[in-house]
């Protein structure tokens, strides 16, 4: 059963001071439910990534409420937020952010190591996660020996290895070609279907819109519109447009 996983209420965020001050989020309100793949879309500079960072607890909002899995992140201390992230959030970044000197399996095991699990256990789970993204035979490869699509699949395995209820993705397909992008989105779609997981994808890649269950459109730091079904999404963003 879908429950509210993320609730952002009238959040404001600006960068800089004085004349250089730029307001990025303006009274932004947003929510996302578990068990669905929600896309946050909009033009460059509209505040998507800032909103994602605030939801992840990696950036402080100037004001407003941020509730993730029933926990008010804006009221927690940074160490508690870090622990919360380690347990409940999986991350997929635009630039993959795999550590180049670690093998695929070692990279995937990182979230479990951060949580304090023994290496042997972490590596075993990492190999299982790599199998899930169809890269079991690349477990001992260094990222430098892998293609962009393979690296992003390793990143997906890393985001899933500790079985977090929420996956946050920042432009996961923007560094990939169409085929790899579709493959990655397919995996994310599959991940959302497991364990009533919430997958939030920030993107402006309209080739991937068909994978969304729900879509929030942002513009100038505000949520402009929320499309609740794939039909509504198709109606507003026809395939091939």
């Amino acid at each position: 059963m879908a429950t509210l996983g993320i609730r952002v209420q009238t959040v404001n965020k600006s960068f800089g001071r004085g004349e250089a001050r730029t307001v990025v989020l303006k009274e932004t309100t947003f929510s996302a439910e578990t068990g669905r793949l929600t896309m946050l879309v909009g033009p460059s500079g509209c505040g998507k990534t800032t909103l994602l960072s605030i939801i992840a607890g990696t950036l402080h909002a100037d004001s407003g409420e941020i509730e993730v899995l029933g926990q008010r992140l804006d009221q927690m201390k940074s160490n508690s937020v870090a622990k919360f992230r380690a347990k409940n959030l999986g991350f997929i970044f635009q630039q993959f952010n795999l550590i180049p000197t670690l093998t695929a399996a070692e990279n995937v095991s990182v979230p479990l190591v951060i949580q304090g699990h023994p290496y042997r256990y972490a590596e075993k789970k990492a190999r299982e996660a790599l199998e899930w993204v169809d890269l079991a035979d690349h477990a001992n490869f260094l990222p430098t020996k892998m293609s962009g699509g393979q690296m992003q699949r390793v990143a997906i395995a890393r985001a899933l290895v500790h079985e977090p209820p929420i996956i946050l993705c920042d432009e996961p397909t923007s560094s990939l070609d169409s085929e790899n992008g579709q493959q990655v989105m397919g995996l994310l779609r599959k991940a959302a279907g497991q364990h009533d997981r919430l997958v939030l994808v920030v993107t402006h890649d309209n080739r991937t819109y068909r994978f969304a269950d729900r879509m929030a459109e942002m513009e100038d730091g505000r949520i402009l519109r929320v499309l609740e079904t794939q039909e509504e999404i198709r109606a507003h963003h026809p395939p091939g447009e």
Partner: protein
Amino acid sequence: MIRIALKMLFGDRGKYLMLISGITFATLLMAQGMSLFCGLMSWTFSTMRNVHVPVWVADPKVEQCNDNKPMRDTDTTRVRSVDGVAWAVPFFQNLSMARMQDGTSKMVTLIGLDNNTLIGAPTKIVAGRLEDLSMPNTVVIDEFGVERFSAGRDKKIGIGDIFEINDREARIVAICDSYRSFTGGPYVFTTYDRAVEYTPNQRKMLSFVLAAPQAGISDEELATRIAAQTGLAAFTHHAFAWSTIMWYIRNTGIPINVGTIVIIGFIIGAAISGQTFYSFVLENTRHFAALRAMGASSGDLTAMLLAQAVLVGFIGYGTGLGVVTFLGTNLLKLGKVPFLMLWQIPAVVGVAVMVIVAISAVIGIARIVRLEPAIVFR
């Protein structure tokens, strides 16, 4: 997390080797400088190391064992008269010119020992017999003397060979093992009276009086009594050795020169390691930020950087110390360079290396703990 940290470090081979090189070089400079300093300082009181007696009595103006302010011969008797003295014997020391039969001359440190007891004689005789010093015109030379006197000759000099000291015959009856003198010349041991004969005549010839306490009296107590009752300067072996070292520290440029080497070593090590480590942290900022985003705490990242820095410190320190030890025990000995690595040197250098490592780590940690994990989303 430590394992991940070390894999990150080992993976960046260029920086890893640069860091180790920096620490190795710093260790090498610091340990080498300190060992040379200690070696040089140990040479300053070589006479005392060769002639190991409990109490040294000298002219009141004497501050160090190479200083020669002769006393009257009767001063030996005055020292013997002090209550608590087990024995007291005269001791002669002077720099003299030795001339070989082929006409070449070498500076030597001439030591005159008590005629009857030979107290203070070298303990390690490697050839010949010490007792033969009772024969006329005889001397004992050290192995370094054999080497110096044999230079340019087809055959090494040995027992029975003759040379001259101030135009008087000196026949070698024994060869001993001794510590090198600060002046760089070999030691020549003979009896007190013969040493006086070898030396151009002066009104006063007695360099030191060597003494020992009776049972139940400490060296310090005896030295205090001798000084109080005779007005002469009296030192225990330990006190005189330190007085000698301190004199050289105060009156020569050795500490400044060696200290400069040590400080340069520290600065070079800190600069290379600090800069390379900071560069390593900068290049990995995005990865550290990703780790933070994934839930690693500031403590986790601090532990990672400390582990990296400490490991580099240990490897660099071990390598540097190994190189210094190799140089000291093999190469430097060939050139007769003073080298003495006391156990305190590795300890002090170890602390200095840990300070360098701490500086490097703190520079990196200061950046990482302030790191905004949100940069991974940009």
